[in-house]
């Protein structure tokens, strides 16, 4: 590699740099300097892309954005978390006024309802926005109520910067999400360079494709804790890759533990990712113990302890205040009952895969893998009200199948290497499995037990974006010297075009 392909040094090397430099800030600066320019460009692409989406999507038209905004408002204005137990809480009068001014009720979930279209409506909106009405709601934040507070605490900063103007507050909060999108692309880049050190170009293009992914940009360009979960997951993948390829040093284990803790504090869905993270730690611990004895258990145990600490504090707080020990997660315990578990597993299977004869039919008439996961991955924006025509989904099958074939070809060709890296791959697969099972089980609880909607939204799978970047990179590598440049460049144009066409679809829906 003539270029400093992947120059972030091992934690030990970084520690040395820190000591030599004399100060911690110098050490951090040195680490940042060693990140290749290409990684920063990937991050910049993701940042600008998300900023673009934040400007295209009208205020509060990001998925559940009004609820997430209400959570931040509750923290700042009331100084407390939204947990007063009222199931049908209301937003603050000021938020309600702005939503009314935006005609949100007629636009959300209604593809035929467009955003404001006259100057008079704009004047009315500004009047509502400047009304100075109460910023205190009933103390709830809709579907966001059960979520942990870290993301919302961070979003309180832009809220405070623009305090008093909801529309500006919301836009600044969206920009924070765009930063998270940039960090996701950065982590994906570093992860791919780590796992594919001999294919730096393929890794770069894989990360670039992730940076251009429109669903990532849409989610990062709106106020939603998912946007913070993506970089946390990306950084976790990076830590695991480094730990498996180098070693799980004490410093790396602290970083990994902190990431797990941050994940737990970001969104409940992280529980699915945590399963894989802890599985990865267990595999690493086993490997280290075999190599250097029991002393090596120190680092993985430290990571596990740091990671689980917020859960322990949360459980203790709930016990002391006579709430369910694990909050909303406690309700999930009923799914593990002997009579229920078979149904849950059957449901989860059918949620992603074709039904096997003998299974109860949970999705009659629906090919979940295509109608839910593939078609909605092609395009599902706004409040699940902006999709492409069915023919676009069918056309999208062609490039998707081509990438899948190339990826499969490369896997078969490199099966020897894969076998050697089985422990590492098993950790990644555990993360995938954990997330899929969590989404499926939550969907079962909502769909089957509570007769509420299922949870079939591809945004839940975006924490796995670094692996999608890996799929792109391996598909490029499958082309060999001769075809790889053409495949890589085609993928970049394809993703860029896909991004623009998605933006146009959203523009047509809200402003057409």
């Amino acid at each position, binding site marked *: 590699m003539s*270029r400093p392909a992947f120059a972030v040094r091992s934690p030990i090397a970084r520690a040395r740099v820190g000591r030599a430099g004399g100060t911690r800030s110098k050490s951090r600066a040195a680490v940042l300097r060693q990140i290749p320019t*290409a990684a920063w*460009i990937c991050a*910049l*692409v993701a940042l*600008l892309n998300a900023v673009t989406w934040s*400007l295209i999507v*009208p205020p509060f038209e990001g998925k559940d954005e009004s609820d997430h905004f209400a959570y931040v408002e509750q923290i700042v204005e009331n100084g407390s978390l939204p947990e007063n137990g009222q199931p049908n809480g209301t937003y603050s009068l000021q938020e309600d006024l702005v939503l009314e001014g935006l005609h949100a009720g007629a636009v959300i*979930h*209604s*593809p035929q309802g467009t*955003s404001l*279209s*006259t100057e008079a*409506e*704009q004047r009315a909106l*500004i009047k509502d926005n400047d009304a100075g009405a109460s910023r205190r709601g009933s103390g709830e934040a809709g579907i966001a109520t059960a979520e942990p507070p870290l993301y919302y605490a961070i979003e309180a900063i832009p809220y405070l910067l623009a305090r008093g*103007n909801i*529309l500006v507050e919301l*836009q600044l909060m969206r920009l924070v999400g765009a930063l998270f999108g940039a960090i996701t692309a950065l982590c994906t880049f570093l992860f791919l360079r780590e796992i594919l050190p001999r294919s*730096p*170009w393929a890794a*770069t293009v894989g990360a*670039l494709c992730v*940076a251009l992914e429109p669903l990532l940009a849409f989610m990062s360009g709106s106020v939603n804790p998912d946007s913070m979960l993506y970089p946390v997951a990306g950084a976790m993948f990076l830590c695991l890759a480094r730990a498996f390829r180098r070693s799980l040093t004490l410093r790396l284990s602290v970083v990994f533990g902190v990431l797990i803790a941050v994940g737990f504090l970001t969104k409940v869905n992280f529980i699915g990712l945590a399963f894989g993270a802890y599985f990865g730690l267990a595999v690493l611990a086993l490997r280290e113990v075999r190599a250097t004895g029991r002393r090596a258990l120190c680092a993985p145990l430290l990571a596990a302890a740091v990671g689980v600490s917020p859960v322990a504090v949360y459980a203790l707080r709930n016990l002391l205040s006579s709430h369910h020990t694990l909050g909303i997660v406690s309700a999930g315990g009923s799914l593990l009952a002997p009579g229920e578990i078979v149904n849950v597993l059957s449901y989860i299977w059918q949620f992603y895969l074709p039904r096997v004869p003998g299974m109860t039919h949970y*999705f*009659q*008439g*629906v*090919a979940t893998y*295509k*109608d*839910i996961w593939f078609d*909605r991955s092609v395009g599902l924006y706004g409040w*699940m*009200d902006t*999709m492409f025509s069915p023919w676009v989904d069918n056309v999208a099958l062609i490039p998707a199948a081509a990438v899948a074939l190339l990826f499969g070809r490369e896997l078969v060709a490199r099966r020897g290497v894969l076998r050697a890296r089985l422990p590492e791959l098993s950790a990644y697969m555990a993360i995938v499995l954990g997330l899929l099972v969590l989404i499926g089980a939550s969907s079962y609880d909502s*769909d089957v037990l509570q*007769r509420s*909607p*299922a949870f*079939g939204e591809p945004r839940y799978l975006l924490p796995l974006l670094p692996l999608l970047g890996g799929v792109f990179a391996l598909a490029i590598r499958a082309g060999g*010297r001769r075809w*790889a*440049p053409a495949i*890589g*460049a*085609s993928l*970049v*144009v*394809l993703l*860029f*075009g896909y*991004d623009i*066409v998605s*933006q146009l679809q959203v*523009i*047509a829906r809200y*402003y*057409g």
Partner: protein
Amino acid sequence: MRPQSNLAAVGRSHGSINEHREDGGIEALEAASERMRAVRVVQVTLAVGVALLIGVIAYTLSRSPPRVLRAGVAPNVVLSPLAGSGAACQIDEVLPAHTSAIRLSIVAYIGARIRLTAYSGSQLLTGGSRGPDWTGTSVTVPVKPLSRTVSNVRLCVDIGPNSEYVYLFGRETPPAEAMVVPTGGRLSGRLDISYLGAGRRSWWSRALEVARHMGLGRAFSGTWIVLLIATLVGVVGILAGRLTLRELP
């Protein structure tokens, strides 16, 4: 002899160095040529791709967005929650000429297959179907357009199979006007049905209107937002293209 052999040895050694140099030079040349070829391939692919993209976007913008030929009743009530298959017909509908799609206020998180048939008396006028790949508060079903407007149409909706609940939204009416189910019973009102056809103006001709529209609904209104968005998209494209070329091995 020895000096000669030494010379010969030196000569051989020099030859070997020269050969190595030549080998190294050839390898370097080959690598440079390989890189040039790769750069050319990437440049051509990017150029062709961007040209295709511009073509696709230009073609799409030359098309007209669908417009509502005839709006339905403003929905305010759930007529029927459906779990499993179901069917119902609505009488006294007017099917406008050139209707290319019919939008039904049917709410589902995971959609179901929808089959639509329009009758005049017992004569089948047109029909269409849509797979379960939809979600939200309405589903649009493409139908074969007719050249003339037809009144007193009976529009039948066949939904399913499905496991999720599907809700028909509409407005309560006297029983005589309400939707009829195959068993002969009636729902509580009429389904909200809108008839869509091709618009008269292309996206191109509406570009300024859309741009003005995009400038509204924010704290800082103005069409400049569209220019900012276009600039950002351009910068993203340039950065992506340049990075793809720059990082070639």
